[in-house]
């Protein structure tokens, strides 16, 4: 028989919802979030704390869930990428990552979003250096980080209230049957 760790009852508040599951004593938070809590937005990249794809907030602090014992997260408030948006409304940081090219393949994006949201919660006016320090634990192979920093800066402006959240470039629900101009642009009868 395969030796197994004894099970313990694990309770946490994940993205505002109380969760309770039976987990092995030796469980890692990342595995519990993905396999028990269904938070598949929390990604497993390197499984040893280098890529940062598994970053979640525990009581507001960004933590690598792959290096955190699940029991350390028990009884705490955990926020994953799924919990950043307010219902259907994207958080500024999510919207800015889209608009400024902060996400390409998107695999590292959940980790970056959580790490940068944690930064903006503490400091809505971060310098470039502070942004770099906040995301130095996240690895991105696509963007070269520059557009990620642009995204975070843009989100910070919204957090500071200096800028409205920009309306999307176009519209999610365009009418395929719009009207044309109200008045003919030529004298009546000219064309007809």
């Amino acid at each position: 028989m395969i030796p197994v760790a004894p099970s313990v009852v694990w309770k946490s508040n994940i993205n505002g919802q109380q969760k309770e599951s039976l987990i092995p004593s030796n469980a890692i938070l990342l595995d519990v979030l993905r396999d028990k809590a269904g938070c598949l937005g929390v990604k497993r990249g390197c499984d040893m704390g280098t890529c940062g794809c598994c970053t979640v907030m525990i009581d507001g602090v960004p933590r690598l869930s792959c290096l955190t014992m699940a029991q350390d997260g028990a009884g705490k408030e955990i926020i994953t990428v799924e919990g950043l948006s307010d219902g259907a409304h994207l958080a500024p940081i999510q919207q800015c990552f889209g608009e400024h090219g902060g996400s390409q393949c998107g695999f590292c994006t959940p980790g970056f979003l959580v790490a940068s949201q944690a930064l903006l919660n503490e400091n809505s006016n971060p310098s470039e250096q502070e942004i770099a320090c906040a995301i130095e634990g996240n690895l991105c192979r696509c963007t070269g980080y520059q557009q990620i920093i642009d995204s975070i800066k843009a989100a910070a402006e919204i957090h500071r209230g200096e800028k409205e959240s920009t309306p999307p470039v176009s519209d999610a629900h365009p009418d395929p049957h719009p009207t044309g101009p109200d008045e003919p642009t030529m004298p009546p009868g000219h064309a007809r």
Partner: protein
Amino acid sequence: MAGGYKQQPGSRSSETRKDGKRVAGKQSFAPPGSGGSRPKMAERDLDFIPEMVGGKEHQPAGAHIHDRARTGTTVGKRIPLVDANAKVTGQAWYGDDVRLQNEIIGRIVRSPHHYAKVVSVDTSKAENLPGVLAVATGDDAPNKFGVLPVTKDEHAMAVEKVRHVGDLVACVAAIDEATAREAAALIEVEYEVLDSIHDMKKGLEDVDEPIHWRGKYHVGTTNVQKRVFQEFGDRSMVENPSAMYHGKWKFQGVNHGFTEPHAVVAHWDSNGRLQLYTPQQVPHYAHRALATVLEVPMHQINVIRTFVGGGFGGKSDPFPHEMCAAILARKAGRPVRINFDREEVFWVNRGRHPSHIEVQLYADEDARISGFDIDALIDGGGFASFGHVTSYYNGVLATAPYELGSFHYTGARVWTNKPASGAMRGHGAVNTRCAVEVGLDDMAEQLQVDPIDLRLANLLPPHSRTISGFRITSNGMRQALQKVREGSDWDNKFRKLPLGKGIGIGCGFFISGSGLPIHWDPNKFPHATVHMQIDMDGGVTVHTGAADIGQGSTTAVAQVVAEVLALPIEMIHVRSHESDTSPVDLGSYSSRVTFMNANAAIRAALEIKEKLLNAAWDVLGYHPDTLVLNDRRIYYKHDPAIGMSYLEALHKAQEDKGALISSGAYRSPPMGGVHKGAAAGLAPAYSFSAYVAEVDVDVETGLIKCTDVWAAHDCGKALNPLAVEGQIIGSCHMGLGQVLTEQMVYGRSGHLQNPNLLDYKIPSVHEMPNVTPIIIESCDPEGPFGAKEAGEGPLLPILPAVVNAVYDAIGIRVNDLPLTPDKIWAAITKKMKIERIEDATNLPVPRLDFSELQEKLAKRAAEHNIRDKKRQTTEDTSAYVNGVLFGFDPNIPLEEQVEGWAHADKPSAEQLAELGLAGKAWLKEEQRNMGGEN
């Protein structure tokens, strides 16, 4: 809803009787599918409509065949990727996010030996472990597969031999990961260990037991997988050169380092069809290989591409673990999921080849480049993968952007007992490009000229042919060089910065789509096909096999369709995940998607557009040529009030036939020569790039920090500048990793020492320089709206730019990448010893006094500038082939003009005597010429 449908024809608004009641049969109804927001048409966005068709978008490179299809809707605009929201909310589903009912977990048993015969595999203990549902070994899948039809040398699991540590031997599936791991440990394999090869030079030697056996085509009994010899031009030109560079380069293997490890889910559905979920760049190859290995017809397999968490070439081969999952799932009758640990990713590898590259460059008295001699020995690891192509690319992709007097290339790829090398961003071109560009820098120094001017005075013009016969169409190389020179303040910095600070230049040249679809004849079957379908709701469903790997191919396809039909991009729904619904497509490699799929999509969209305009013609009475598409409406161009909505036109067009469908395809034009290997490197267009990098070198520790990069890339036309800039900056990051920190380290015992992301050193945010992306738009005549690739080419120039900048900073060239601080420190220490310098801060820095040649070059560059402009705008349409700079007539075959103009694909007897390292592969005979039976 104004202007809705009427129950019967009548006035525009609902009619009411005088008493206010409605008139039966004269009521307006909203057409099915209408409603929503923005009920008014927007103004035409003239800023994004080319000036040639009445807009304000400047076209310095002239008109384009697709100009009339422009509507100012999305092309050229900075728009987010269409799947950005899925990615920022965690809803994007990658390989490991596919969870099917009843899934079980697969685990692979891997070889602990570099090279061994598999004597026996005993699976009985594993099979008897409770919870184990399936066990498979090489016996379950005897058929070979491989990404290239010419080199199928892989099995799902070892048959007969294992070829590197980590090679697959068997696999198990069990109810959970713990059981699967336990079962994997219980599989007993008996090996007979063979002598392994780790040094690629040893691969050239005859051995008792070559890693693979190619029968009559096997080269001697060596481990040479592929050898290439190419010679073009007049070899006598390299005699008595004014400057010559000879460099022996060493490049370590690098890995793609994508953040998503491989993962696969296989499921045989209730009808016995295989549903295979995998993050693939090229689902079609996996599809073909699965059919071969599983002995199931392709139509009974549905390959479902999940979101791909980074590919960069590393997810483009059909993989053995995909076969394993399918085999296990078939045996167990339940869905099987396999996800990789990071070290397994390194064992699959397919990263850039470790290489020994020797280059000799020559310049004549006019500082013309009289010859490139390149010798590339590349280490293929245990399998062929894309290596056949890589063997060519290492040479042929160095034949431009410069005009050459002669070109000589010998290449060889050998098998060694390492994880297989394969295709990685900038496939085959990166390492040689670095050596060549550094060589040019060195020759510029010998000639005492500015290296940018040396390049500017030797460029091939637009619409020309390279020495090996590649057809260059648009060419923005010159503007790229000019822009980075300006942007970086080059003229005030080069050879003028203090010790430890340096600036350097590098250029790049890359294919925009491989001209040869590997599996079929391009004259019979198109490169890419796109299907479109529009039903009553007005939404446009686009089916394409373009695999979005984060580069934004889905967005590019959606954009061009939206552009042609003048619809908001939200109305375009790209379906590209399933092979069941997408047309056959070669997926995302060789930077082909934008060029080929977007072209096919434009054609499909134009077909729909025509149908819509004809319908509008019926209703409005104006000929389609006089009608304008703009923001969901079609109207008479002289009076926008005379028009109809898109939906009205659509429904008119759908009368009697229902949904509109169309299909568009892309075929490449005939290109290139007929010599052996002529297809390698052929592409319908080429991208060009030039970078200037600035570095800080700590002369005491040897640590290099790249501080700034000015990165100009000619992508033809930026369909989405935001995405193009993302590709440029991302390429810088990846190239910077290769030049400064990344390497796959094989230690004393031949084991890969750093198969994890802590020890495999991908640059962090702190190592990233400030990159200024500069987009050059040369408007390719055949590209979609003029576009070419932007995904791979931008990686090339960063390596030589950094190496050249390091020389500018400390006067030392190190030809051994990555430039880790220990190598730089060792080189500095050596130089200090030779020059008897005590303190590193007293190192001499290179300075430049121009020779007379400089003025001559500047003059020639200025003349060529005028020549190129005329050719680009087709003011000058005369023929231009490589050799004109040397005084030859482009209208007469060069062989007829020049005695000794060679065109060889095999070395002559004299040449055999003086071949370089890789060239030595030609000293052996193939088995068929040795009278061997095999």
